[in-house]
């Protein structure tokens, strides 16, 4: 199979924590512009897969090719610069800073030490921040300290922090977890809007939400792919029903 049609090719990926293989000889491919949803029971290794792609965990074996670059040999910030953005399972924002400052730090300029010292809040920065804030429903909260936001708003803030980086591959770990029904709806719309011009990997448990957004679904179980295909396909797969959807 040629790598060039895929934005991300994961092949033979394995990571072992003291002998326990959280991800075991995993291969999957994500196309340009695709929304891929990864589902699977708790402990299946979903978060670990994202950790491996974004450089937080180093793989034991295998390769992760992103647009021809081998991510498994790069550091976290190099992977970000290459165009991979990642949202954590627990909202991870800068709680002591304002919403505005959270966006400001995420804006992809002035990332070196002296770049940061000389960074100016010019019109380009302000425009990007205001647009992003509006997109993630936080335009009224720019001056607010981030730890005063609700759980759902923090999730949005973190999504906004990724968007302002303009990543070409966006990875979201349980983006609607802990959200109210109304917030889920808004988030689903948001995701459909922001996934237009980029590829996305989403981890999610909420099957209605998955059905709404997924192009293709990968089911993980014990660090391996159990099934892969359209939502319809995996929902009918007897193996999937047995280990995951059945209960």
């Amino acid at each position, binding site marked *: 199979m040629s790598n060039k049609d895929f934005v991300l090719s994961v092949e033979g990926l394995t990571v072992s924590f003291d002998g326990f293989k959280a991800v075991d000889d995993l291969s999957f491919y994500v196309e340009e512009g695709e929304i891929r949803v990864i589902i699977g029971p708790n402990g299946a290794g979903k978060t670990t897969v994202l950790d491996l792609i974004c450089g937080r965990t180093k793989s034991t074996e295998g390769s992760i090719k992103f647009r021809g670059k081998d991510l498994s040999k790069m550091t976290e*910030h190099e992977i970000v610069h290459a165009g991979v953005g990642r949202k954590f399972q627990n909202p991870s924002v800068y709680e002591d800073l304002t919403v505005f400052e959270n966006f*400001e*730090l*995420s804006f992809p300029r002035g990332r070196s030490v002296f770049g940061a010292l000389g960074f100016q809040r010019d019109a380009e920065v302000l425009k990007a921040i205001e647009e992003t804030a509006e997109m993630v429903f936080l335009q009224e909260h720019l*001056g607010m300290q981030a730890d005063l936001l609700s759980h759902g708003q923090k999730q949005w803030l973190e999504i906004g922090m990724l968007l302002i980086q303009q990543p070409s591959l966006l990875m979201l770990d349980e983006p609607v977890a802990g959200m109210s029904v109304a917030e889920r709806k808004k988030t689903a719309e948001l995701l459909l809007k922001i996934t237009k011009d980029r590829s996305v990997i989403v981890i999610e448990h909420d099957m209605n939400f998955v059905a709404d957004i997924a192009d293709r679904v990968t089911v993980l179980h014990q660090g391996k792919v159990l099934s892969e295909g359209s939502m319809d396909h995996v929902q009918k797969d007897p193996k999937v029903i047995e280990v995951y959807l059945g209960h």
Partner: protein
Amino acid sequence: MSNYSKQKFLSPAELGGFIVLAILLFVVLPLSVDDFRLNLIGKYLSYSFVAMGLVLCWGYGGILSLGQGVFFGIGGYCMAMFLKLEASSVENTAIQSTPGIPDFMDWNQLTELPWFWEPFNSLGLSLIAVILVPGLFAFLIGLAMFKRRVGGVYFAIITQAVAAILTILIVGSQGMTGGINGITDLRTLLGWDIRTDEAKVILYFVCVTFVFICLFLCQFVLRSKLGRLLVAVRDTEERVRFSGYNVDNFKIFIFTFAAMLSAIGGALFTLQVGFMSPSFVGIVPSIEMVIFCAVGGRLSLLGAVYGALAVNFAKTTLSEAIPELWLFALGGMFIAVVSIFPNGLMGLYNTYISAPVNRFYHAAVRFINKDKPVETLSEPLSEPESESTLGAK
């Protein structure tokens, strides 16, 4: 343009704080104390540079160094080496078996100036060395530690070990460093006698001027995006990496910057006190320096100055009266700062004086303007900053 994106170099409250400090140091103290006490205050102030560095590195960046005495000491030694060479002219040292080298070298049977002393014949090179040698040393320590992701308590312990090792090295190579006694009997700077009362007053003002230069430099760093990144690194280091920053470089930078500040303090200390010795390098002085910063308030630059003044004043007073008590007092202060007022004197000031005064001011403005349209009231006097928004958790 909306409020949230506006950034002043100094908020009105901070500007007020700077002005009060300037009046205190430039006018009130020189007019109200004798030359001897003024020189003492100048000596205390040379520690405030270390405390400022710790505000940035520890208070904001979360990197606790228990070895700042190393950089203070190297800065001080670089200055002392120049002054010592000037004091060791051939005429001054004619009675030695090798005239023209520092006396302690002669006592240790050295017959030649060690190579690394040579640059210190030049004032220019010595002043550059005051900043660059400690800076380079801190940079290398930072590089070795932060690139390996050594942080927190481990980093603190390693800096402490460095302080111990450097002290042992200095004490052990008596012939080249003056050993336990340090470098003493410093006399003139380019022929200008630094031991006179008049010189000491001038040096005090030089020191205060540098205090303000460094305060402004630090304020610039804190006001830049780098200042906000430091807070972000302190609280959620990993997230900062995934915002695309090479966090290690930022840590190396701020640690090096703090070291250079300490070194400036060390050089000013040597000039004002007239000697430098390993007793300002080791573990105990390094821990004292952290306490200056903690007592002043680790999130406040001005607090660094007040902390250095207050703790050193207490030390002098107590050591004159009951010398044995000082270490207990130091321990007590440390416990108090950690458990009762974690943001130090400036934290207390913000909570009990600044905030109520602000509230009173706003209430008064509201009262006076109660007939006027509401818009004129919307601009707040100042945001009661660090204490509430950046407080360490």
